[in-house]
């Protein structure tokens, strides 16, 4: 069995997101005055070949803490989808 882990890594709300700010200003210039903010994060898809969803979930969390996210300034979430 395999799971697709849909991983989102985002800057903590307290961290200034300069890319998001630039995008928000561009949207403002395009006339979208109601767009209040934009935050940019990363979306990573990982295929994990494991039978048990609990094990796939454990691996998903572990790889976020070890490599995919920097816990000093980023948060992450992992969503699992069974693919085969």
């Amino acid at each position, binding site marked *: 069995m395999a799971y697709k882990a849909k991983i989102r890594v985002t800057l903590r709300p307290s961290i200034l997101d300069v*890319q998001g700010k630039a995008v928000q200003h561009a949207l403002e210039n395009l006339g979208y005055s109601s767009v209040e903010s934009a935050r940019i994060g990363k979306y990573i898809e990982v295929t994990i070949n494991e039978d048990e969803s609990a094990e796939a979930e454990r691996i998903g969390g572990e790889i976020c803490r070890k490599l995919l996210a*920097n816990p*000093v300034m980023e948060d992450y979430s992992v969503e699992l989808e069974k693919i085969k």
Partner: protein
Amino acid sequence: MDTVTIGIVVFPGSNCDHDTEFAAASFSKTTTRMLWHKEHDLQGSDVIILPGGFSYGDYLRAGSIAKFSPIMQEVIEFARKGRPVLGICNGFQVLLECGLLDGALSKNRDKKFICRHMHVRVENNRTLFTSLYHENEVLSLPVAHGEGNYYAPAETIESLEEHDQIVFRYCDAAGNVTEETNLNGSVSAIAGISNREKNVLGLMPHPERASDSLLGSSDGSRMFQGLVEHVLG
């Protein structure tokens, strides 16, 4: 010791490795070794330098992939034994990612890649790296980075202050630290920090690019000289 061996780690994407070699090898009794990231052997190095550049293309986050290089496991062990490790620019990012130093570096506050000489003030000259500087001395060192905005939570900053780990701050020519001189937006205008034991230093400015007056400043060369003198004893 009679001689000093300075090991310079080369990651795919390092681009200040040879400048660092030039700066480090300019002292007598000093030899350099280029250490490819896939190696495990530090080749008898007395000092390890992680140079600037874009290791692994800065993929994912600057320094995030380099921390798992085979050579880094040896570098971490070397640092834990109290031996000197210096990380310059991308090398600083790697030291933060692998946990030898506290905090993180994010994108510059004003979204710009900053490439210019900046003034930095020596906050602590009681380290292996800064012993040849005066306390509060103002240095002119080049910076070249897009992600040099140092961040750490308030309790980490307090702890860095308490243990004299803040080694360099951005300032003006007279040594004043203001919002205007803190070009990348770093918390507390931090340009470089050490670990608590003071044997690991990371900084965003490039001392190797200020190692000869022909380069516009030779303020950086005393950092390498200090390390060499420390090893020679």
